[in-house]
């Protein structure tokens, strides 16, 4: 274990210091892996996506800018894109509009300060559970399966307008729940 914070560690990783990289791996692998597993469902595929995520951290650490957001969110953004790319590859689905390089697409990530990590994921979980099944379903398919609105409409057999309305409503509910965080 190290007393160095994320920013200090990622700066060391950018300089090629492997111990710092492994320290960050130990610190965040559980958070990254749970997301890749959520998206891919298959433990072996999820481990590959987790590994790819950390290899991207190793090779792109110099691009991380602390002022744009926390390292964890940067990592999770990379993990989501990596897992969705893998999912598209496995299901032969076309690449979607949000599948740009994570480091390019990464614009403004909130710092996430104010809530300890465990409280944070519990509050997120609580808000998701509070959604109606239909709302939860569109969020699930859009965010964790990477489907576009028209693809969701096709998968669920709903009119496209219904999908748009439910997705907008679900997001509005979550935004209210998290106070715009």
């Amino acid at each position, binding site marked *: 274990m190290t007393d160095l914070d994320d920013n200090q560690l990622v700066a060391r990783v950018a300089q090629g210091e492997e111990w710092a990289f492994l320290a960050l791996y130990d610190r965040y692998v559980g958070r990254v892996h749970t997301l890749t597993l959520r998206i891919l469902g298959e433990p072996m595929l999820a481990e590959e996506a987790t590994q790819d995520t950390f290899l991207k951290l190793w090779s792109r650490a110099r691009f991380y800018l602390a002022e744009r957001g926390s390292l964890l969110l940067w990592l999770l953004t990379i993990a989501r894109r990596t897992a969705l790319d893998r999912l598209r590859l496995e299901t032969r689905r076309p690449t979607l509009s949000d599948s740009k390089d994570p480091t390019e697409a990464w614009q403004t990530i909130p710092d996430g300060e104010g809530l300890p990590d465990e409280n944070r994921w519990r509050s997120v979980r609580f808000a998701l559970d509070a959604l109606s099944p239909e709302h939860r379903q569109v969020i699930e398919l859009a965010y964790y399966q990477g489907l576009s609105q028209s693809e969701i409409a096709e998968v669920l057999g709903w009119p496209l307008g219904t999908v748009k309305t439910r997705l907008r409503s679900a997001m509005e509910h979550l*935004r209210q729940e998290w106070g715009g965080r």
Partner: protein
Amino acid sequence: MTYYQHVPFRENIPAYALGALDAEEAAALESHLRTCESCRDELDTYRATSENLLMGFPPRNPSAALRRQLQRRLPSEQRAVRPRLHWSFSRVAMGIAILLLLALNVFSITQVQALQRQQDQLISQMQNGQMALEMLSYSNTQTFRINEGNTRGSLLLDKEYNNAVLILRGLPAIPANQTYQIWLISPNQDRVSAGLLRPQTDQPFIVEPIHVTQDLVNFVGVGMTVEPAAGSDHPTGMQIFRIDF
């Protein structure tokens, strides 16, 4: 821009923040966002919402093997592995190169020795041929024909200068453990060895001087037999020819 002009774009912002907007709508919204600050602010709040979704699950660690696997992909491990492989490969390559050089060296030496032997044989044949020509050009030289089975040839004899040369072709093949032996025959039929003859198989004919250790006038004939490879002190094998002079 009026509020109503924003509406179609605003409606798409939550889906865009989730990455769920179809390509055409996403392109239109992005174009609008470049000029509309209030929509950009709206997007920021939805982005924060979608990014919270990344946090929605309790941590779950992968197998311990993944860390070791990842560690092996790091440069220090790669360096630790690569030099071993490289060193091992270099050693094998160097060993093969040394063996090839040694083999080439041995082959070259063998070739040089073979060429040396051929050169010696050619010089010897040339000298023998020269001797035969000199004898033929000399009027006192006697010529005796040899015609025994397949063996044909001549004996050139010069008693004055005590020289004798055999010119032979068609000698029967003999095994490696045997040789031809030339004998001088005395008046009382005793045989005195006049040299061994082991012809090369690729020669069309043989010109072989007879090794005369005594005066030729003391002898009445020449013969040739097949003997063991080291030669014999008296004839023991098959007679190839005999010439009386």
